């Protein structure tokens, strides 16, 4: 963060149509190195669709998504497959948790290492020294990540047996295993109690510094968003309606009307 902050992700004019419905209408968003950016807005504003476009699950109708990994390269990633985008260094979690339920907690994280390891089918069958070392490293790295999110004790448990909050943390560990430079969290605090949310806040902050990555998160818990974000982008009905620091957003009349006003009316 010392020198001029590099742009890691530059989204401009992103538009996504489903049939006749415009889910996202010309939205732009930048993320710089080391930043935590929050994407907020009422339900159905198009936040998750935005995530899905950026991570390659949907191919956007129009617009540009350009990423610039820390190695200095830069690339337009529209229409790339999700796995290719993850390999380039963006990883995500899911709003409706998508773990591998019948695999153990440790194995879930080990899947994240898949795109950073190389052993082929033949390597595995032969079982040479390099393959065995790679496997050891995968276990060790995954284990360290589990320690980081506080799940090391449950490494051998099936993922489906974890509590809700633990499942969300496991998703974060799994995403981190892919060594991203940008982490996208889709409602990481959903379904957590206040205590768990506080711990999550600390975890996100720690991840940012330890792993030197930027974070884009969708979240409805305003306290969490205001505490942790460097910048906030607000969406409503598929359009970006505001952008700024937490303080600016708090005082933005448009946001108050569209977003916070929703609560006042309710």
């Amino acid at each position, binding site marked *: 963060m010392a020198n001029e902050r590099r742009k890691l992700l530059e989204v401009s004019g992103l538009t996504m149509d489903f049939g006749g419905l415009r889910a996202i209408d010309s939205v732009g968003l930048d993320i710089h190195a080391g930043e935590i950016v929050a994407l907020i807005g009422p339900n159905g504003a198009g936040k998750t669709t935005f995530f899905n476009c950026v*991570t390659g*699950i949907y191919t956007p109708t129009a617009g540009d998504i350009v990423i610039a990994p820390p190695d200095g390269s830069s690339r337009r990633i529209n229409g790339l*497959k*999700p*796995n290719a985008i*993850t*390999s380039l260094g963006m*990883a*995500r979690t*899911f709003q409706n948790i*998508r*773990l*591998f*339920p*019948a*695999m*153990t907690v*440790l*194995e879930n994280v*080990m*899947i*994240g*290492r*898949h*795109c*950073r*390891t190389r*052993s*082929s*089918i033949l390597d*595995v*069958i032969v*079982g040479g020294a390099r*393959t065995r070392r*790679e*496997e*050891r*490293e*995968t*276990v*060790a*790295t995954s*284990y*360290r990540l589990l*320690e*980081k999110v506080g799940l090391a004790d449950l*490494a*051998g*448990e*099936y993922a489906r*047996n*974890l*509590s809700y909050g633990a499942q969300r943390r496991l998703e974060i560990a*799994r*995403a981190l*295993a*892919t*060594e991203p430079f940008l982490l996208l969290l889709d409602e990481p605090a959903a379904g957590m109690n206040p205590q768990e949310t506080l711990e999550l806040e600390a975890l996100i902050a720690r991840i940012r510094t*330890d*792993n030197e990555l930027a974070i884009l998160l969708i979240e409805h818990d305003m306290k969490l968003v205001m505490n942790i974000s460097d910048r906030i982008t607000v969406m409503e009905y598929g359009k970006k309606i505001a952008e700024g620091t937490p303080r600016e957003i708090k005082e933005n009349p448009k946001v108050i009307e569209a977003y916070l006003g929703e609560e006042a009316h309710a």
Partner: protein
Amino acid sequence: MTHFKKSLGIGLWFMFLTFPLMVVRVNTIDNVIEWRWSNVVWVGACAAAIAWLWQFSIERRAARHAAALADPHPQAKRHTLAQRLSDDPALTRRALIVAGLLAVVFPWVTSTTQNFYHINVMVSALIFVVLGLGLNITVGLAGLLDLGYIAFFAVGAYTYALLGQHLALGFWICLPLGGLVSMLFGLVLGFPILRLRGDYLAIVTLGFGSITKIILENWDTAFGGAAGIAGIARPEFFGMTLEGRMQSVYTYYIVLALVAATIFIVTRLKNSRIGRAWMALREDEIACEAMGVDMARTKLSAYALGAFWAGLVGVVFAAHNTFINPDSFTFMDSAMVLAMVVLGGMGSILGVIIAALTLKLLPEYLRAFAEYRMLVFGAVMVLMMIFRPQGLINDMRRKYELDTADDADGGDDNGK
């Protein structure tokens, strides 16, 4: 009491339901109707008894679900012997040695120079063990429901038969060739269809299986048509052709070695980067792709590898029988291999082996059972899905030990 009444009602319902088919038989040769009234009584009694058991089991299943929800970390799980076996490495090793020894001495104990029927039966059963293990990769590990698996078996068998017939190639050259040709088929077919959703994929593979059989049946000039190909050479032993019992014993050892190699390789794959990706794919395709796994490649590798094994063992099948025709490669054969995987527990190697041996040997030695074999298979597939979807042997996940000695250079502060 309500159970009893309900069971009685269900018994009556099935008496009604099965009445025309089970009681009446129209004899179109003598133009008379045969009435088989005794069947009604049987059906009623059996249906009522089964219904009673059914209700009991469904309630138990519901109770188990409730218990699992209340306590996600059951302390004392009931373990079957087989599960304990796969949990304890020392015990596993000892059991493996004993099983291996038994398998090795089997042909000598059970046969004489005149009578080696048991060896031949066992060879057929072991062929299906390999088939089951191969399909286990595709269905059990990667979750790709392949209903035309037997077609790859046919490709292997016909590859050997045709290469032997036209080019006089021997068994040992054809063995890998059969596997490779079959894998090539898998790759070519798999490429366009693996994008399909699970249930569509099942139907398309079923289509491929059926097309293969129809082509084999009708293209007389190339594949011998419905009559098939006869006079296929048995495996040669360093250029020699063995006779009688020795030949059977030799084939037996070949299949046994193939089984051992398959177990070894599949175990390695399962506990590796590749195997984990297959299982993740089975669990959740979208999450799997989002975690950086190349879905197309992973699916294709599972599909083609499964095909490879079927092709390999197809060569052995042709060599063992010395005669093949399309009747050995019907949908029912695909279904039987699938039943082995389902019954054994998707993904569980030991389970598939036990299931394959049971399903193949039981009809052979219990002739009375043979007639009802497919009927029982069908019922078992339904019942397994309802009451024990994890199969006879639950696929226990491997516990990964963190090797601290090797990891000393790493350490915690070196974390990424």
